[in-house]
């Protein structure tokens, strides 16, 4: 799947501005951005629900000029999708399988298989009205898979789920990329799990791409200085500071019981090794109560980027 210069304008406001990227089979692209960044709009453009103001894209090898053919090859879990409350989960899936042209028998088989896959087999014949949020999301995922899609889009699939539900949904999404070999586009603003799921990320803010690449690359582009928080018994703070004073590239800051260490890159761009820091402290026979490293996670990069220069 590939998009070039995708743009969508609503009147004077540009919801998605010249966005370009590509995803291959088996990959999971994370579309990250705060609310209003244009994630949903981007997904709706790619799923032919909206028409782009400008730009091109190809989905599963089909050009954007053939929306019907695209729809046959994609699966979509829309943002906060609604469900017919009085239908049962299996009726719902059966209907959508039939919409994709499956005959009764095939549709029934697909329905049963997918319900088992998302863990809804035992509630298949209950009305959707009785489903929890997590069950609805999983039903929606099953619906997105009725046509065995080559590209699957998930718009905020974990929104409003409890941690167990989030993990369950993300596990299913991983499976879709790995076992089915589909290309997956996942939009979210909850980052921590995405680091584990996504092979690449695209960070959006106000419709424009702030960063793109693998998770590591994106973190690298932020150039946020890693900071470590060292907690030692309070009477040993001074000694700990002393033991580190000679190490190069460290800025130290002390509070009552913690030592804040900023690992500034030296003139050669080399970032001091955190292990060396720890070893120096341990060598001085100071008991380490905790050592927290910040600024090396995607969330730090995300926060750093999306909070900069607010318009």
């Amino acid at each position, binding site marked *: 799947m590939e998009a070039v210069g995708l743009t969508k304008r609503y009147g004077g406001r540009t919801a998605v501005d010249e966005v370009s990227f590509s995803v291959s089979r088996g990959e999971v692209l994370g579309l990250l951005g705060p609310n209003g960044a244009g994630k949903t709009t981007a997904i709706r453009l790619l799923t032919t629900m909206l028409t782009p103001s400008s730009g091109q894209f190809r989905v599963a090898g089909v050009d954007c000029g053939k929306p019907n053919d695209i729809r046959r090859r994609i699966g979509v879990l829309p943002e906060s999708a609604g469900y017919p409350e*009085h239908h*049962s989960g*299996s*009726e719902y899936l*059966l209907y959508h399988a039939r919409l994709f042209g499956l005959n009764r028998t095939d549709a*029934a088989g697909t*329905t*049963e298989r997918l319900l088992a896959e998302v863990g809804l087999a035992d509630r*298949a*014949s*209950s*009305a959707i009205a009785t489903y929890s949020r997590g069950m609805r999301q999983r039903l929606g995922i099953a619906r997105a898979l009725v046509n065995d899609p080559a590209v699957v889009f998930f718009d905020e699939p974990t929104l409003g789920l409890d941690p167990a539900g989030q993990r369950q949904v993300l596990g299913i999404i991983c499976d879709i990329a790995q076992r089915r070999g589909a290309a997956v586009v996942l939009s979210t603003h909850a980052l921590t799990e995405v680091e584990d799921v996504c092979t690449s990320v695209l960070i959006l803010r106000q419709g424009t791409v702030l960063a793109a690449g693998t998770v590591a690359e994106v973190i690298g582009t932020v150039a946020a200085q890693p900071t470590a928080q060292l907690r030692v018994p309070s009477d040993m703070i001074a000694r700990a500071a002393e033991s580190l004073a000679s190490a190069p590239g460290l800025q130290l800051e002390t509070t009552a019981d913690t030592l804040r260490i900023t690992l500034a890159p030296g003139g050669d761009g080399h970032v001091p090794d955190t292990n060396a820091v720890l070893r120096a402290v341990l060598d001085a026979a100071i008991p380490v109560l905790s050592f927290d490293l910040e600024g090396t996670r995607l969330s730090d990069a995300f926060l750093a980027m999306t909070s900069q220069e607010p318009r």
Partner: protein
Amino acid sequence: MRALALLAALGIVLIGPALPGTAAHAADTEPIEVSFDQTEVVVVIGQQFSLQSEVVNTGPIPAGARLAHLNVASLTGGVYVDPEDWSANRSLSVEPMAPGDSVPLDWDLHAVNAGSFDVYVVLLPNAAATAGTGPLIVSPPVHVTVTERRTLNPGGSLPTVIAVPVLLGLIAATIRYRGRRPARRDVF
């Protein structure tokens, strides 16, 4: 006095046809008669019924085309009659008739109002040349008595009025109830 009148009448009958002035008069009095096969009918309001009448050319000469027109008159004060409601087709044409011919005329009627009515037929000459001229030949009336009908079951509609909502209510409730229950497995 009586003998004189008899003589005069005989004179008219004998001389009449010879006189040019009375030739048209003879044509006017073509001996056609119209009558119903009954004089008295009793029906219930709302009932459909039919009356049979017959037009007969009793004379020795052919009779011209006629238009038979049915009329209804109310004999009960305060009851208004709209003859159009009593019969959808109140005019029938009668072809020219040879002497001795007869034509049956059937009239379908609805007893629209309750009360006492007279129904009669008028024959009018029915040709462009005779428009606006007579004579009119009238049948003896049939007396129609329409009786009221008051029951607890107006117009027989009570079964419908009760049965239909009950039936539809049951159907709606069944579908509702069925929809609430978990659907059966056989939806697969």
